[in-house]
């Protein structure tokens, strides 16, 4: 997925759409907005990011899971199997992006890229509702997907690549 921070206005529509689509319990979220202000007035820049799980290639949450509940499916999405998760919290402690939370039912929950929607040909809920169209979803191995196309034309970065997780959420800035 790619996020255009120059177009994002931080309206939090993606957050609400996700909470509605995935019945995220009150007080929790699978995606969130971060606003970074850099510099002192008058030299000041603002970056607004819609953040979620980075679906890392080298995912520490998958590595440290003692039961294999955290796993990577074909295509690279990191998912949790509810019936294998024991709720030990190791994955929550292992995530440098703090992208996971303990669901009140006991298992650990996180962004699924709306896997239930994309396998029916739809876009993730957050991408679907974004009013400024700053979210781009698609298979990065497919050069014609929305995400690949927009990344080809723009300068982008990932968040803390030095954490070594090979994050797959790209921020255009």
């Amino acid at each position, binding site marked *: 997925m790619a996020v255009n921070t120059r177009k994002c206005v*931080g309206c*939090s529509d993606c*957050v609400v759409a996700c909470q509605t689509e995935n019945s995220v319990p009150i*007080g*929790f*979220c699978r995606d*969130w*907005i*971060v*606003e*970074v*202000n*850099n*510099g*002192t007035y008058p030299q000041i820049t603002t970056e*607004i990011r819609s*953040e979620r799980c980075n679906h890392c290639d080298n995912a*520490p949450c998958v*590595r*440290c*899971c*003692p*039961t*294999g*509940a955290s796993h990577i499916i074909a295509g690279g999405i990191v998912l949790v199997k509810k*019936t*294998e*998760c*024991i*709720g*030990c*919290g*190791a994955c*929550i*402690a*292992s*995530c*440098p992006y*703090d992208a996971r*939370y*303990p669901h009140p*039912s*006991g*298992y*650990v929950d996180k962004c699924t890229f709306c896997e239930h929607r994309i396998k029916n040909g739809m876009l993730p809920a957050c991408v679907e509702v974004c009013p400024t169209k700053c979210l781009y979803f698609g298979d990065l191995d497919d050069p014609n997907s929305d995400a690949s196309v927009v990344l080809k034309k723009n300068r982008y970065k990932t*968040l*803390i690549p*030095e*954490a*070594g997780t090979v994050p797959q959420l790209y921020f255009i800035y």
Partner: protein
Amino acid sequence: MKEELIVSGRMNDLVDPNLHIWHWPIPLYLFLGGMAAGILCLAALYYMQGKEDKYRTAVRITPFLAPLLLVLGLLALFIDLRHKLYFWQLYTNIKFQSPMSWGAWTLMVITPVSFIWCALNIKELFPKWDWKFRWLKFLDEFFTKYKKALAWVMLIFGIILGIYTGILLSAFNARPLWNTSILGPLFLASGISAGAAATLILSKNSEERTHFARIDLVFLGVELFLIIHMFMGFLASTQVQIDAARMFLGGEFTTSFWIFVVFMGMIIPALLEIMELRKYHIPAVIPALLVIFGSLMLRFIIVHAGQASRWLY
């Protein structure tokens, strides 16, 4: 000046306590498991050296604490799980990359072994003990015959258990304070010193007490060395690890760590034990309890502070 503003419900421990995922059960378990590992290692080691009569308490009496500590530790672990009824999933999977999986399987081995070791020594506590059933007597004889092999299993899995309590934390690079391989040996050394302290409390033999005071002293020295090494490593590392070290060098954990862990848990008991070895009369129970207290505080502070340390972005 860089300012990061969290607009929507982003959860980190600053905003929402949910990501401070490990509370008291984990450090308590790390302490109980570490101390049990120390007790079992020392018992196995002295048994294999044929010193079970010389250090009778350490080989035969103190190990009675180990199953108790392990069961309490397992209970704490169970309390910490949020999806409790699925705990059996731990034992239908082996994940070599997950320290927690290693730990679960290690506990699966060492807990029964510690019970068997106690059963073999039960006549120490109850001289008139009788197993009553023939098959229990048979098992007693069987394990007595292979006691040396049992001691090896106990020693090896004891060391794995002691180290794993640290590796469990150091496998998380998301928490820079934990992300140091020194935590493994540090927690092992701390577990062994707590195990030696348990024998120090229980032993009535002054020769044995002197010996275990020496062991305690050696491992306290090792711990201090490792702690200094840990901070040297942090300060020579990346910004996130320098920040992690600063939590202990002027930051919010400075007082609790240096007073409770280093001063009360290591330096004072070390001084008391040196005085005792120099023939001043000091009740052995005081330094021993301080060592155990320091070992407990070490786990609590490291687990707590680790979750407050994070990557910046």
